[in-house]
């Protein structure tokens, strides 16, 4: 089990995100009311109905790279999640997120070959954010596009690429990718060098999200990508270096009720190790049973963490001025068995994405101890389910 980013909840949530955005895009076709109707009806889709006919993550998978870097269209949902901490030679710090979500519109059995290149059975949604710590600025952008006509897609031949318009991550050599995104005068161009190779999450890459078989995802991470490149911001250009993290997950998961969101941590520590943790939060305030994590040593060896192996304490909170949602804003993360005690703080309080779905995803700094030695680090935290999407209550 693993990341929760989009863990079980994720699969559950992703479908609404994409279709809600879809509905928003299509809403002018129908009317505002009708658009809201679309939205509510989407949220109400029972998963049995909508996910029938798709491949499911049920058994251990025979992983094959680089093939598995690419898309798995037989699964209903899939995402490629890039986050990272960057800084200039002078120490000016930035955070970024570039995420591509894929959602199938039809199960494989219903797909027909159509003459038009525009015929789509996949939809892509992408989020791009940039955190400018010195400028106290956080910007978030969203795009939605059909996975057709070359407008958006994911592929492995001739080389790995996932893109939506000009937002793209593309292989430029062995273990090397180029990431590009730009919006509203903000540009990000990074070369990402993989330092560890894929780390399979959960049980050899099968990440259980719920009690039912198949309520799981296939999931691996590239927990340490060494990044070098440029950030363009308000007409200035910054040369930056840093570390990024990539998650790739695909599934046809069902929704388990009574979970309202999750808190996910991906931390890169100064001793060369990484730690990934997530909690499912339930409506009654308790933590879901499938919350878990992974410790990745410098040599790449991984150790799974169960719900009982770690603790995440919230030390303070922050109220979003945009959604009025109250988010945790300072944590103590402890993994007693590994003698890990970490203090995690956002680099900027306001890293809330107010897009078709509101959530908090931001760069954090880490300090504390590991095995009795002081350790520091950077990371990304994702907090979902704190704000009601599109309602602003």
């Amino acid at each position, binding site marked *: 089990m693993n990341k929760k980013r989009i863990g079980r909840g994720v699969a559950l949530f992703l479908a609404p995100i994409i279709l809600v955005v879809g509905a928003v895009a299509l809403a002018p076709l129908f*009317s505002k009311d009708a658009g809201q109707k679309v939205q509510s009806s989407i949220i109400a889709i029972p998963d049995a109905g909508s996910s029938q006919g798709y491949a499911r993550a049920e058994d251990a998978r025979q992983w094959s790279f680089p093939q598995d870097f690419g898309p798995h269209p037989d699964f209903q949902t899939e995402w490629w999640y890039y986050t990272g901490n960057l800084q200039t030679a002078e120490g000016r710090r930035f955070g970024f997120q570039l995420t591509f979500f894929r959602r199938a519109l039809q199960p494989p059995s219903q797909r027909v070959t159509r003459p*038009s*290149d525009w015929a789509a059975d996949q939809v892509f949604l992408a989020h791009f954010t940039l955190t400018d710590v010195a400028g106290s600025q956080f910007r978030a952008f969203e795009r939605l596009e059909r996975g057709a006509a070359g407008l958006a897609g994911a592929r492995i031949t001739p080389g790995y690429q996932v893109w939506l318009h000009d937002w793209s991550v593309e292989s430029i050599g062995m273990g090397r990718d180029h990431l590009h995104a730009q*919006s509203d005068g903000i540009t990000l161009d990074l070369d990402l060098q993989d330092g560890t190779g894929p780390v399979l999450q959960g049980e050899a890459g099968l990440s259980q999200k719920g009690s039912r078989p198949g309520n799981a995802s296939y999931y691996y991470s590239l927990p340490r990508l060494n990044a070098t490149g440029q950030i363009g911001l308000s007409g200035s250009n910054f040369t930056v270096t840093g570390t990024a993290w990539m998650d790739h997950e695909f599934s046809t998961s069902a929704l388990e009720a009574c979970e309202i969101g999750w808190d996910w941590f991906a931390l890169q520590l100064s001793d060369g190790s990484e730690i990934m943790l997530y909690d499912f939060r339930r409506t009654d305030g308790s933590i879901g049973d499938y919350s878990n994590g992974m410790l990745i040593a410098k040599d790449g060896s991984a150790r799974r963490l169960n719900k009982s192996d770690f603790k995440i304490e919230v030390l303070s909170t922050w109220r979003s001025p945009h959604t009025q949602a109250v988010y945790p804003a300072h944590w103590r993360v402890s993994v007693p068995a590994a003698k890990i005690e970490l203090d995690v703080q956002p680099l900027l309080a306001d890293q809330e994405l107010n897009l078709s779905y509101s959530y908090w995803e931001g760069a954090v700094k880490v300090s504390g101890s590991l095995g009795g030695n002081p350790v520091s680090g950077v990371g990304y935290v994702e907090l979902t389910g704190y704000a009601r999407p599109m309602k602003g209550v």
Partner: protein
Amino acid sequence: MRQAGVSVGLPASLTRVGWRYLWAHRWQSLLMIFGIALGVAVVISIDLANSSAARAFTLSTETVAGKATHQITAGPQGVADRLYTRLRLEQPDVVAAPVIDVTVTSPQLGSHPMQLMGIDPFADAPFRSFLGSESTAQGGVADVSSLLRFLTQPGAVLLSQPLADRFGLKPGSPLTILLGGKEHPAVVAGLLTPQNDLSARTLDGVIIADIATAQELTGLTGQISRIDLILNDEAQSSTLQTWLPAGTLLQTSAARSGTLDQMTAAFRLNLSALSLLALVVGMFLIYNTMTFSVVQRREWFGILRCLGVTRREIFLLVLVEAFGVGLIGALAGIGLGLLMGQVTVRMVTQTVNDLYFTTTVQPGGPDPWSLIKGAGMGLLTTLLTAALPAYEAASVPPRAALLRSGIEAKARASVGKAAVAAVGSGILALILFYIPSNSVILAFIGTLATVVAAALLSSVTLITLMRFAAWAGGKLLGFTGKMAARNLVNSLSRTAVAVAALMVAVAVIVGVGLMIDSFRYTVVVWLEQTLQGDIYVSAPALDAVHASATIEPAVVDAIAAWHGVARVDTLRSTEVAARSGPVGILATENPSIGKERLFVWQAQATPQTWAALQSGGVLLSEPLANRLNISRPAANAAGAAAQLPQIELLTGSGWRTFPIVGVYYDYSSSQGAALMSLQVYRQAWQDTGLTALAVRMSPGGSPDALARDLQDHLPGGQALVIRPNASLRADALAVFDRTFSITVALRLLATIVAFIGVLNSLLLLQLEKAREVGILRALGLTGRQLWGLVMTETGLMGLTAGLLAMPTGYILALILVFIINRRSFGWTLQLHVTPDIFVQAMGIALAASLLAGIYPAIKLGRMAAAQVMRYE
């Protein structure tokens, strides 16, 4: 003599007196009202038709353009859809959406032309909001499954709820989309609930599909019609301009729709001018009636003046009367105009569809502005025309008013002045026509001046003719003949106006009739020359002008190899961009094209025409050459080849200059076209599509039989239109006649107004003479003689009007054929004069006037002499 309290406004008692007069003469008032109403109705019905055509057009454009500020278009095959992808990837900040916009029909939707709009729901939201928002939609489309169906199901389309209801369609109902003779299966994936009447009407003619589905339904995979853009500023558009590949065109939405709007402007202006003619004829009627009512009441006005009523009050009294009559007439005109509008809207829409573009949008109810304009114009005209008689009434000194003959003396005295004014007006017309300009409005003002000049001549003509008529009438008919002619001159103030009104109406009949005859004759000659094939094959097109549906290549080969086919000439007709806007292209591979066109001028001898085309030259049709101001190149003194004019066209690889090697007569479209060799076209546009074939048969075959044979046995799934030469020619003439049906109808209406005018004035004239007739009867005039007298009088008026109408009509025809038509549509017509139209015109003038004499004759004949005298 003035009474206190009377000087302000018009005393109620006086107004009552005025109304009582109108009531006492209610038949006369009714006729006047009817005349005004008819004039107003004609103006309103034409304006309704024009504004409805314009609005249907605007709605169609808005539907397709939405909020786009700019559009990217390309050559005949549309824009490659990859260009949109490149735009998205390379210019991600540009707000853009791909659009497919094709006219189709569907038997399940009544086989009317419909706009199939392919849109991309992922990109379209900033552009077209007409489909929705802020309403209380109850539409059934807003569920995930129809959303998914719209994107994923082949053939899925959306319709508006009212449209679907009208044809009994529900989500899931199958549809057949017909385009270019091919059937494509589709299915209703969901229904849209329009949020207001406007979007309901707009959506009424629209089938919406995802861009992928639209590509599949039209068979145009890889293509889109255009890319809509919202550009923020000039900088963005110039960046984009630099980025765009050759062969594409970036233009503002306004420029694009403006071009289309201009196309019909001349047509609509001509209709408006024609409709005003009815009002002008109506003016004569109003003037005549008002004058008469004043003349009749001169004594009465004199008495009023003696009683202390002021001049101003008399003036106002007459104006108020006119206003009342004008108001009732204008209101009645609105009702009548709405009724007539139902016919004219259909006629004009048909013509616009025939000649310009296919409208799929049904304009809504009548435009209130048309009604207000028409009614206001009628009322104003009435008041203006009544001002002169009102002034006349007010200016009579109390004593002089008792002299009945006063006004007639004045009328006769002013004949000279009228003649001078006529000459002045004629000179003005000449000057206006000689101003070197292409202004249609100037030409119409000149036409009006011509008509006024002719109308002013009617009194001189009447006096002159009556001198002869009195002599001739005396010889032929004796006393009554002589008397009739003299009577007409004695009541010149009324008879001249009646004659002028009838003359104008008949002159219009002659002028317009000659113009249509000439036009038709020219078209017949042109068809003869141009349609040299025995059978014509094309893909069915909804839009006669832009027939761009292509014929499948296999069909072309099959026809070429058909038994009995000697030769097949292929034609590609389409539209490309020139610097001045879209231009029709006719690309042919017919080497004898030079012999099959009539040329305004040619840079080479006819045998070399084909060679000139093959080496890249183009021939322009006359309307296009006029539109672009292309004139024959002047040969220079040294005799060296003259510099040929050029036209720049946007080819697949960018702008390219083509030399113009000639201009030919063409009447197929007022937009005009450029004719080139198919080989040159294909090389420049990389487009192998064909839109029409001209088949020539081996000697001895029957075109009808071959056409039937092809129709029945041609392989392939494309329904083609296969027509023998004769049937195509008949069709062309049918379209021609349909185009002029509204002109003919208007001409008829003008005649009716004139007829009422003549009837009215004759009736009044004769009734006024009741006393005189009584004396004549007392002196022994028999009933038969009375009939003879009345009929001779009216007949002489008709004869005068008819005689004057002939030269006037002929001049009008010259103006219409050589000035108005050329300026409006760019066509040179051959004047074709047949005597029957003159005979017909004279017949109408005489018939109208004689008919108008019957009722007064009967009425006077029935009165016993004593009664008539007592009446007085």
